[in-house]
């Protein structure tokens, strides 16, 4: 099997998975006993004959199931670019795609900062611990890793809010971080000031995610590396008289590149779900908070929920595909259909 056939096959399978997720998303809100007309209309007006049907017509709720399904699929697979742009949000009556478009950058910024922080602190720390395996440094990293793995992220976040806001700011008047939100009021003037202000607001939430996450990354890296360091080829490298540095980076760390890359790629979707809690706690108007607020039990904003679920599912599938392809790039043993 050549690489092209392999890639084509993987893309078709990925597409089928996304299609199935989309179908499930559709079915959930068919069986879900929520009728948007109930909260779109004043209860008094709802008694007006015909009015409910007008509303239902407007939102396409009166069409037969198969027509709804086909329209829904077209809507999803155009990724909000073509009308009707993921449909109308029941809360704001705006296109869901528009709402998503201005929230997405904030979420990406938050998660990007957190991921970069985790990786540039966690991975070197893991390498450091592995190079000193069995020492107190190593034990400290393992301990910290297990601890932060066990403590829920939101708990770390609440503690850090308590410290930086209630203690440092409110008791001593030192404003290191803003108390919440994603931009100051009144908004600062000028693009650079606005960006700086947004970054300042992102700093504490991102920091909490790094505090809660970096030791886990360090632990993963450390464990994979310690395993690699016991392999025979590391003994060969050592017998060759290479420096410990070369052995650690060129031989041991290079052999775990595929796993690290996989971990990195597959952590992206997980971060999105993590954003739900973080954005809610810090009052950031990102996709996560928006998604949670659309999940009201009695009147879910289902076009929003469907769109977010669809985008996240696509992200998961794409990340999996990328991880598989990256593995092949980094590990010559599993390169598919390579010919010489």
């Amino acid at each position, binding site marked *: 099997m050549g690489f092209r056939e392999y890639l084509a096959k993987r893309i078709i399978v990925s597409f089928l998975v996304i299609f199935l997720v989309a179908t499930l998303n559709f079915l959930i809100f068919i069986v879900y006993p929520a009728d948007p007309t109930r909260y779109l209309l004043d209860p008094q007006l709802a008694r007006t004959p015909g009015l409910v049907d007008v509303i239902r017509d407007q939102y396409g709720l009166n069409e037969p199931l198969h027509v709804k399904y086909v329209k829904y699929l077209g809507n999803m697979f155009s990724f909000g670019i073509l009308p009707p742009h993921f449909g109308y949000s029941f809360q704001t009556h705006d296109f869901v795609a528009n709402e998503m478009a201005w929230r997405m950058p904030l979420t990406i910024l938050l998660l990007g900062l957190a991921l970069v922080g985790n990786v540039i602190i966690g991975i070197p720390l893991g390498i450091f611990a592995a190079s000193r395996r069995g020492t107190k440094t190593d034990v400290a990293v393992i301990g910290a890793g297990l601890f932060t793995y066990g403590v829920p992220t939101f708990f770390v976040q609440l503690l850090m809010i308590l410290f930086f806001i209630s203690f440092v700011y409110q008791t001593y008047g030192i404003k290191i971080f803003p108390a919440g939100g994603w931009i100051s009021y009144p908004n600062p003037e000028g693009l650079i000031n606005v960006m700086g202000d947004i970054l300042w607001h992102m700093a504490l939430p991102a920091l909490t995610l790094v505090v809660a996450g970096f030791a886990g990354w360090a632990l993963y890296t450390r464990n994979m590396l310690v395993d690699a360091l016991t392999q025979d080829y590391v003994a*060969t490298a050592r*017998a060759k008289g290479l*420096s410990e540095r070369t052995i650690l980076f060129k031989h041991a760390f290079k*052999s775990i590149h595929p796993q690290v890359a996989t971990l990195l790629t597959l952590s992206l979707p997980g971060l999105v779900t993590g954003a739900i809690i973080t954005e809610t706690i810090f009052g950031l108007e990102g996709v996560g908070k928006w998604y949670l607020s659309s999940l009201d039990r009695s009147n879910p904003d289902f076009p929003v929920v469907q769109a977010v679920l669809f985008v996240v599912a696509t992200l998961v599938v794409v990340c999996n595909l990328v991880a598989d392809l990256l593995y092949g790039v980094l590990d010559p043993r599993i390169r598919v259909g390579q010919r010489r």
Partner: protein
Amino acid sequence: MELLKLQNLKMYYGTLRGDVRAVDDISFTMEKKDTVGLAGESGCGKTSAMLAILRLQPPNAKVSGEILFQGKNLLKMSDSEFRKNIRWKKISTIFQGAMNALHPTLRVGDQITEAILAHESRSKQEATEIAGKLFDLVGIGSERLDRYSHELSGGMKQRTMIAMSLACNPELIIADEPTTALDVIIEAQVLKVMKELQEKLGLSMIVISHDLSMIAETCNKAAIMYAGKIVEFGGIVKVFTEPLHPYTQKLIAAFPSILGSMRELASISGFPPDLLSPPPACRFHPRCPYAMNICRKEEPRYIEADQNRYVACHLVSR
């Protein structure tokens, strides 16, 4: 002058249950161009002895005694001096290449050139030329330098290991079970390569194996190890034709011969001892058919029974 002289070398692994005496007071001497076969059953300390010479022992191992290499005690050298001046440059190894000894994601050529570049001031291009010549020498062909180890067969991996061991023209090569994971045909090919190189380059080697026929074929001296001790050492023909120690006799009797009459193979009754608490006095006495009272009370000394012929047995020293 001797190339390598082990004197009272000991290596104990510290464990929670006590010290495992993997190498317990071994001594032997080898000259330049000698090939010494280190033989014995699994767990007798052959590989531990090799690790001690290469200073690759795990952190819980305690090494004592003397390893004199060209007159210098390797155990007294600093780590960085040993790494820069001895490893691969003077003493290199042939690990079991068919297993995991080659890096999975580095090209085999690069694995050879990095050894050259670490010890000699050469350009990358010169190093690649040397690696290519070595590949031609062991019969793989320099065009395979850009392969990964998984793209080579078991025999080719083992030849790669051999080529790699020659990269810096070492004074001594230690081969640890160089043919163990190979089938007999490939084994014969690898042995042929090793013998040719020995003749062509005048190599000094230590070959570690439990395969006596392979040792008989490649070595001119043999050291037979049992339970962490060398029980017999001497010229290969003498050791194989007139073994002095009962263990050596048993070991040779347990091996089939293609030539000569058919006979039932003898086995050695009992089990190899636990090196945490080996039998007192002579360690072979529980399995020895000639065991005497003194064997249970007193450890036999390792004596020179004949010229360059050493043995540790009360039968001989009496």
